[in-house]
């Protein structure tokens, strides 16, 4: 536990285990992320990184464990029903007396956690502008009738302005009216980030934001992530394979292998960690 | 009481057997293509119409029956090649719409050929004869249907478990893309599925129309839908499930038709209250209940979507 302990804790995972049938995808993962940090989650393919994201964002309900967001438990679960017998993780009894808490992904987004996807999931029939505009929908105050009869013109105008600004910030203003899926790969990734920002998050989860980018684009992306973090006062939690990017911008790094956390620390510490080198970097070099 | 209920069970088992033969076609196609083949009920109807015209042309019946099965199989095969194969990479909704389109086309084609009038199904000797079971009288076909169905299902299960094409079918239904990569000729497997499904629908049509001997362009719609419900009820993709589902639906449906009588005999009601109105609707109520309570059906396997 290093430099950031004095800051407010934004996200904390406590003993998260995710088991699909007999397969334990994440095994007793605990981690914390503090206000203003950029934290990276790394690990070989199939280590359970995206599953961890899905547990936080409500796509999956973890088999066991708690997720706190700004101190509030947003996910609580313990093995139930058939899973009690099948359970392959540890600490299964820890939360047995706590009432399970589960939210749908949209509720989680409401609370202020926004995400992007590993395999870009833009709204394919919509323009870049519309994609971002949809992100503003959840903060609306209008209802269906006022929206239909255009009684929410003021709000709509504000949302459009916000969208335009976001596109400007991510550098996509010139392609605002292009179909999202017709954009080049790098721009699609940026657009996904802009869309996530439109939901007014306090925590941004980025799932391999640099995947498929060349070194130059990756460098630019790094600067961009730091820039938006500062501009919107965000905390960033990202999964990434580009080690240069991870080492450049992360405050801390968690390393996952076969669902288990094998290391945690600053980039320098991780780079020197023999366990990581053996399990991960070594494998990766082949 | 038993004497009252028995006739309904008897016709329920018979009609259930006929639904089962159609349901297998649905369940196999769904297992492999994840497609509700809306036209399958119409293939069943077309088999009936082909029989009508073949018999009318003066061919002897022993020749008509294999010919009907052959042509039905050809129809099923052609439908797949013409209407589903070009859409293999299209969204599922497009394929389903295409299936609805095929159903619409087959019905209109038959409407045109028959001039919109009912056609009398030829009388097939022996199975059309009347026989007595206890107090009830019925056609021979009613009695042989369940046995024939079971025999065909056993043969089919053997085919799927013991032959190469059966193994390929199982592989494709588990994982479409991977089996393609493993060198399985997907199109052949799909064609085989449609051929088997159509063959069974053809057999089903002979049994069904021998019992209820008129054919019209809409004859296939209701049995088709009910057979589909049976397939879902049993757990789509599972052949024994489809058969059991079909028998349950056949029996329940006939019991509902006789429910007024049963209630009347029990002294609960003095006049029919018209519950028979719900004989078709009941099937769908059953469908919705099973989808909500156990979406995978009685014997289905759970499939998880990857995010």
């Amino acid at each position, binding site marked *: 536990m290093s430099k950031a302990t004095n800051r407010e804790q934004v996200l904390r995972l406590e003993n998260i285990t995710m088991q699909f049938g007999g397969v334990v995808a994440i095994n007793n993962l605990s981690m914390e992320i503090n206000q203003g940090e950029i934290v990276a989650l790394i690990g070989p393919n199939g280590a359970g990184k995206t599953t961890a994201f899905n547990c936080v964002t409500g796509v999956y309900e973890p088999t066991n464990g708690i997720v706190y967001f700004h101190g509030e438990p947003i996910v609580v679960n313990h093995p139930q029903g058939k899973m009690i017998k099948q359970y392959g993780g540890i600490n299964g009894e820890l939360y047995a007396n706590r009432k399970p808490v589960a939210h749908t992904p949209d509720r989680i987004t409401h609370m202020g956690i926004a995400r992007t996807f590993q395999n870009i999931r833009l709204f394919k029939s919509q323009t870049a502008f519309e994609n971002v505009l949809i992100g503003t929908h959840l903060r609306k105050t209008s209802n269906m009738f006022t929206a239909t009869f255009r009684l929410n013109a003021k709000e709509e105008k504000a949302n459009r302005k916000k969208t335009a600004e976001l596109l400007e910030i991510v550098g996509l203003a010139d392609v605002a009216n292009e179909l999202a899926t017709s954009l080049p790969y790098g721009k699609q990734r940026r657009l996904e980030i802009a869309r996530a920002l439109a939901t007014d998050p306090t925590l941004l989860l980025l799932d391999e934001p640099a995947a498929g980018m060349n070194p130059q684009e990756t460098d630019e992306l790094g600067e961009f992530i730091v820039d938006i973090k500062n501009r919107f006062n965000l905390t960033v939690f990202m999964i990434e394979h580009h080690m240069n990017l991870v080492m450049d911008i992360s405050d801390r790094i968690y390393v996952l292998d076969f669902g288990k956390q094998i290391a945690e620390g600053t980039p320098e510490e991780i780079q020197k960690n023999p366990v990581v080198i053996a399990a991960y970097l070594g494998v990766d070099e082949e | 009481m038993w004497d009252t209920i028995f006739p309904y069970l008897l*016709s329920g088992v018979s009609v259930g057997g006929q639904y089962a033969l159609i349901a297998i076609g649905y369940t196999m196609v769904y297992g492999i293509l994840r497609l509700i083949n809306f036209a399958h009920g119409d293939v069943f109807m077309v088999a009936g119409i082909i029989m009508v015209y073949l018999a009318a042309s003066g061919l002897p019946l022993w020749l008509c029956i294999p010919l009907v099965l052959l042509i039905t199989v050809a129809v099923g095969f052609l439908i797949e090649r013409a209407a589903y194969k070009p859409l293999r990479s299209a969204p599922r909704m497009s394929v389903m719409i295409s299936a609805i389109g095929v159903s619409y086309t087959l019905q209109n084609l038959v409407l045109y050929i028959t001039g*919109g009038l*009912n056609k009398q199904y030829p009388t097939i000797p022996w199975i059309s004869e*009347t026989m*007595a079971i206890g107090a009830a009288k019925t056609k021979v076909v009613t009695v042989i249907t369940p046995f024939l169905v079971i025999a065909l299902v056993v043969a089919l299960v053997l085919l799927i478990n013991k032959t190469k094409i059966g193994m390929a079918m199982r592989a494709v239904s588990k994982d479409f893309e991977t089996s393609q990569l493993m060198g399985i000729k997907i199109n052949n497997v799909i064609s085989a599925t449609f051929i088997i499904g159509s063959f069974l629908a053809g057999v089903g049509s002979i049994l069904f129309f021998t019992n209820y001997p008129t054919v019209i362009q809409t004859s296939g719609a209701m049995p088709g839908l009910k057979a589909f419900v049976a397939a879902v009820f049993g757990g789509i993709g599972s052949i024994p499930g489809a058969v059991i589902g079909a028998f349950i639906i056949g029996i329940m449906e*006939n019991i509902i*038709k006789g429910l007024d009588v049963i209630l009347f*005999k029990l002294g609960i009601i003095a006049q*029919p209250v*018209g519950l028979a109105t719900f004989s078709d609707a009941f099937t769908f109520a059953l469908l919705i209940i099973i989808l909500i309570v156990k979406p995978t059906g009685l014997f289905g396997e759970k499939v998880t979507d990857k995010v």
Partner: protein
Amino acid sequence: MKKLIALVLAVMMLVPAFAMAEDVIKIGVYEPASGSNGAGGKQETLGVQYANQETPTVKIGDTEYKVELVIADNGSENDKAPSAAQQIISAGASIALGSYGSGVSIAGSDYFKNANIPVIGLTCTNPQVTAGNTHYFRVCFLDPFQGTVLANYAFNTLGVKTAYCLGELGNDYDQGLIEYFKQSFEKLGGTVFKEDFPSKTQDFTSYLSNAVAYGAEVFFCPVSIEYSTLIIQTASAQGLEMPILGGDTLDSNKVAEAATGTNIKVIITTFYQEGANEKFDNGFKAWLNSDAEAMTNNGGNDMIAAVSVMGYDGYYMALEALKNAGSTDGAAVMAALPTTEIDGVSGHIKFDDTGDAIRTSAFVKTINNETGAWEFVAEQSVE
């Protein structure tokens, strides 16, 4: 390409509107040619067509008009009725005939009314067809009458006390006739059990089992030809012992065929019995035998259906009304109809105040299970 389509469409819109020659008068034939009443509708149309080729012209005032039939298929479905009616109306018919089936007649009624075209119902027996309007007439008897005749026959002649009635859901003809049968039968002291089956039913086994279980002694099913043939065949397979009673819809060679070679006794009431008018019988048969298409539409043999007779009489009634009106205008024909009378094949036809033909008797017929022919049983009237 788009422009071409637009042009073709535009031309098509204009063509059908203006195509009327001076000395042609059109009579609409509003009948089902497909659907569950298709067979009956076709036979009814045959009567009209035969009458039309027998008398293809009519003299109205001093002008000789050629009569042209506008045949529109209402598909036996109430939702297809409006467009069939509209087809006749837009063709400029002065009067229309039809339909087989009371439901479609009612469904199309308002369209003719709004277009000021009178209609002569041929075999639609439900009272609601003519009740409360001035444009609909009919040449056949009504269901209250037919229902009473059937109830009397069942109770008094057959001597049965319990009847099972089966009708199609949503079929006005079935429902109406059963209702009137039920009223009369219960008044006589009998018991009635009534059930309905959904449209497109093919499996009647359970309904037959129901009839037996209720202890019924007669099975009354005034349903369409298609359903009644299925019921008779299923009844035969199940060894049904009670007679099947039906209304005029069962008067068809198809029904007779279904009962041939079985032990099922089928008794019906109808408008006409073959042999009552030899001139018509011979002429009609000769025509059927000379016209292959007509023969097919009659079900493949030259047995005369009562509905064909009604079609024939309806056509002459229409001609007579046109002559009396002295005009081809629908409204004028409508005004002339209440006073029009003819001596038809089915008897003298004259309308009462509601526009219904005054009829006092119906023919009771049964199927000879060996020859497959309809046999005359009795001419029945009410009191």
